[in-house]
C-alpha cells in the first residue's frame, strides 16, 4: 500500500514536470534526439542498446542519464557525442544533424563545442598534467603561449597548480579526474559529456569531483550531460533522464534553485496522497510506458523509494 502511494506520488510529480516541459519549450534546445536507435550485431544476435529514444537537452542545464549497468546510457552518450553512429533516428546538436557531418566537420565541431570527462580519465600517460590539459587546444591550433596560459589557469581552478609537471601515473585517481575535468573545460565548450566521471573514485572524492563539475558549468552556463548509475549523483543534475533497457522510462526535474516550486510540488503530492483516486488516465506517455512494463515498474518503484529516502 505504501509502495502504491509512492508510485502515485511519482506519477503526480511526472505531471508537474510535464507542465514544466511546456516552460522548457521556451528554452533553447541544444541537443534534440528523435527516434534514436542503436543496434549492435553480435554474430546472429542483435542487441538493441538504445531503443527508439526521443528527448531534448536544453542549453545550460545539467542533465543526468541515470540507469543500471548495461541499460544503454554510455551508448546513448556516445551517440550524442557523435562518437558512435546511430542505426536510425536523428540527433540534432546546435541545429545540426551530427550524423550528416563527415569526420572532419565532426572533429571541428568537437574542438569547438564539446568537452569530455571519462570514467577512466583517459589521460595520456606520456604527458604531464599541463600537457594533457593543453591537448585539446593543440588541435584547435591555439598559439603555444596562449594555450599554456589557459591550461595553467584551468589547473589552478581545479586546485592542481602544484601538480602541473606530474604525469598521470604520479597522481591519485581524484587528481587525475580533476586533470580530466580541466581538460574538458579548457576550451570553454558549450557542452560537456561525462560518462561515470566518479565511477572509479571513493564517495568523498566523488563529491568533490561532482561539485567541481557543477561549479565549472555554472560559471560559464555550460550544458552538462552526465551518465551515472548512482542515484545520489543524479541529485546534482537539474534534470534526470532514467534509462532502462535502452528506453527512457522517465524524465524528472530536480529543482535546486526555486524552493517555492518544490514546495508546490510537495503540496500537490500531499493532495494526491489524500485522494486515492486513479489518475493514470490523465497522465502522459511516460506513465503509459511504465505501466506497459510490469517488471520495469517494480524495479523503478524501488528506485523511487530510494530516491525519496535520500531526499528525506
Amino acid at each position, binding site marked *: 500500500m505504501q509502495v502504491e502511494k509512492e508510485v502515485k506520488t511519482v506519477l503526480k510529480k511526472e505531471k508537474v514536470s510535464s507542465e514544466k516541459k511546456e516552460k522548457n519549450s521556451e528554452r533553447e534546445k541544444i541537443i534534440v534526439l528523435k527516434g534514436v536507435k542503436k543496434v549492435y550485431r553480435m554474430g546472429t544476435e542483435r542487441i538493441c542498446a538504445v531503443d527508439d529514444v526521443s528527448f531534448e537537452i536544453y542549453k545550460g542545464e545539467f542533465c543526468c542519464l541515470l540507469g543500471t549497468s548495461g541499460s544503454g546510457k554510455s551508448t546513448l552518450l*556516445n551517440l550524442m*557525442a557523435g*562518437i*558512435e553512429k546511430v542505426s536510425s533516428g536523428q540527433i540534432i546538436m546546435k541545429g545540426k544533424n551530427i550524423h550528416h557531418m563527415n*569526420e*572532419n566537420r565532426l*572533429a*571541428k*565541431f*568537437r*574542438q*569547438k563545442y*564539446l568537452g*569530455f570527462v*571519462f570514467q*577512466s580519465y*583517459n589521460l*595520456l600517460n*606520456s604527458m604531464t598534467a599541463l600537457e594533457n590539459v593543453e*591537448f*585539446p587546444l*593543440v*588541435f*584547435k*591550433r591555439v598559439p603555444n603561449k596562449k594555450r599554456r596560459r589557459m591550461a595553467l589557469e584551468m589547473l589552478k581552478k581545479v586546485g592542481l597548480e602544484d601538480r602541473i609537471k606530474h604525469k598521470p601515473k604520479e597522481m591519485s585517481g581524484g587528481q587525475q579526474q580533476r586533470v580530466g575535468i580541466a*581538460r574538458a573545460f579548457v576550451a570553454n565548450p558549450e557542452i560537456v559529456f561525462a560518462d561515470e566521471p566518479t565511477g572509479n573514485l571513493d564517495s568523498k572524492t566523488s563529491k568533490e569531483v561532482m561539485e567541481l563539475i557543477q561549479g565549472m558549468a555554472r560559471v560559464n552556463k555550460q550544458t552538462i550531460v552526465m551518465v551515472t548509475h548512482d542515484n545520489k549523483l543524479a541529485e546534482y543534475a537539474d534534470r534526470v533522464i532514467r534509462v532502462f533497457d535502452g528506453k527512457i522510462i522517465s524524465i524528472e526535474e530536480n529543482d535546486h534553485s526555486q524552493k517555492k516550486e518544490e514546495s508546490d510540488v510537495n503540496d500537490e503530492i500531499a493532495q494526491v496522497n489524500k485522494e486515492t483516486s486513479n489518475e493514470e488516465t490523465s497522465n502522459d506517455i511516460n506513465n503509459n510506458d511504465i505501466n506497459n512494463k510490469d517488471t520495469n515498474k517494480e524495479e523503478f518503484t524501488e528506485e523511487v523509494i530510494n530516491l525519496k529516502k535520500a531526499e528525506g
Partner: protein
Amino acid sequence: MKFNDLVKMGLRNLFRRKARTALTVIGMVIGTISIVIMFSIGYGMRDSFIEQVMENGSMTVITVSTWGYTIDEDGNYIDTGEQKLDSDLVESIKKIDHVKSVGGMLQKNLQLTCGKYNSGMMVYAMDSSTFESFGFPGLTQGEYPTADHKDIIVFGSQARNSEFYNWGSSRGSNSKTIDWDRDTISFTFSDYTVNENKKAFTQVIKNYAVMEESENYMFNYYAWMDLDYFKELYTKYANTLKLEDRKKAIASLNKFDQIQVNVDNMENVTAVQDAIKELGYSSSSDMQYIEPMLQTSKMLQVVLGAIGGVAMVVSAINIANTMIMSIYERTKEIGIMKVLGCMLKDIRKLFLFEAALIGLLGGAIGIMLSYLLSWLINKYGAPLFESLLNTSYMYGETTGGFSRIYFWMPFVAMGFAMVVGIVSGYLPANRATKISAIEAMRTEG
C-alpha cells in the same frame, strides 16, 4: 594541428621507444649504405672503364671514312669499300636526330722544314666554326681560327715535340730540337712529285696556336686548320704541280677524307650509326666497340643495385612493422585524440611524419657511413676487387677508384629513404585513422 606541434609530438613518440626507434633507424642505415655503396661501385667501375676508353677518343664521335669497312653484328670484319664523302652527305647527316654537329675533314701530310732539318706531321682541316661543338680543348698559346682570321694552324699538345732530322747530312742523319719561338719554320705538302719547272710551294708558319693536354689522342699529335684556309693553301700548292697531278690534287679537295659526327649523348651513338648506315655509309665509333662492355657493366650495376634494393625493401618492411606496432600500442591514445577533436588528416600526418623521420634519419646516417665505407674500399679494396673481378685491365691506371659516390647520390638516397619511410608508413597511418574512438578508449593502456 600546427606543424611544429606535429613535429614535437612525432619526436616525443619516437623518443618514447628509444630502442625500437634506434633499431628501425639502423635497419634504414643498412639499407641506405647498401644501396649507395652498390651504386657507387657500379658507377666507379663504369667510370674507370670509360676513362680508359676516353684516352682513345671521344665517346660521342662517329667517324665516316673514305675507306669504310663493314662489320657484322658480332663486330667481325667483312669487307672494305670506298665511299664518296661530299658536302651533300654532310648535309644529310646533319638532319639525323641527336646529331649535334657534323664536320667534313680533309687529312693530309705536312712536311715541316727548318733550314736543313725536316719533320712530318698529319694535318686535319675542318670548318673552324664546328671546332667548339667537337669539344676542342683549350689553348695554352694563341687563338683558334675565327671567321675573320682563318690563317692559323693549331697544334696538338704534343705535336711540336717531334724531332727534326737532316736526312741529307754526310755524317748520317742528325737531329735537332726546334725552338719554335726563334726558328723560322715553314711547311709544304708532299703528296705529289715536285714539278721542277715551277717554284715549289712553301708557307712560313707565322700564326699558330697550341692545344692543352687532352684525353683524346686526336688533339695531341696532329695539327688542325680551318677548311677554307687549308683549301686556299692546297690550291696554291696544286698550282705548282704538273698538269696531271694538279687535276688530281684539286679533285681531292672536293671530297672529304672523313666526316666526323658529334652526337649529343653516348646513348644515342648506336642509333645515329644505324641511321648513317641507312644512308648507305658505314661508320665507326669507339662506342661501337665498348658498347658490349658497357652493357656488361650496366648489368653489373643493375645486379649491385638490386642487392642494395633488397636491403632497402627489408628496411621498408621494418619501418612498416614498427609503425604498426606503434599503432597497436597507441590505440587508446589515438582514440582519445579523435574524441578531443583531432582531425583524421592530422593523425595520418603524425604517423607519416614519424615514418618519414625514421627514413630520413636512417638515410642521413647511412650516407655519412657510405662515404666512410667508400673511402675504405678505395684505399684497401684493390686486391679484393682485382681478384674478384679478374678485370685488372680495367683498373690499370685509373684514379677514380672502385667506388665513386656522385654528388647526386646522397640526395637521391636521402629522398629515396624518406619516400620509403612515407610509403611504408602510409598503410599503418591510414589504419590509425580508421581506429574507432570508442573501441580505442575501451582498450587498456
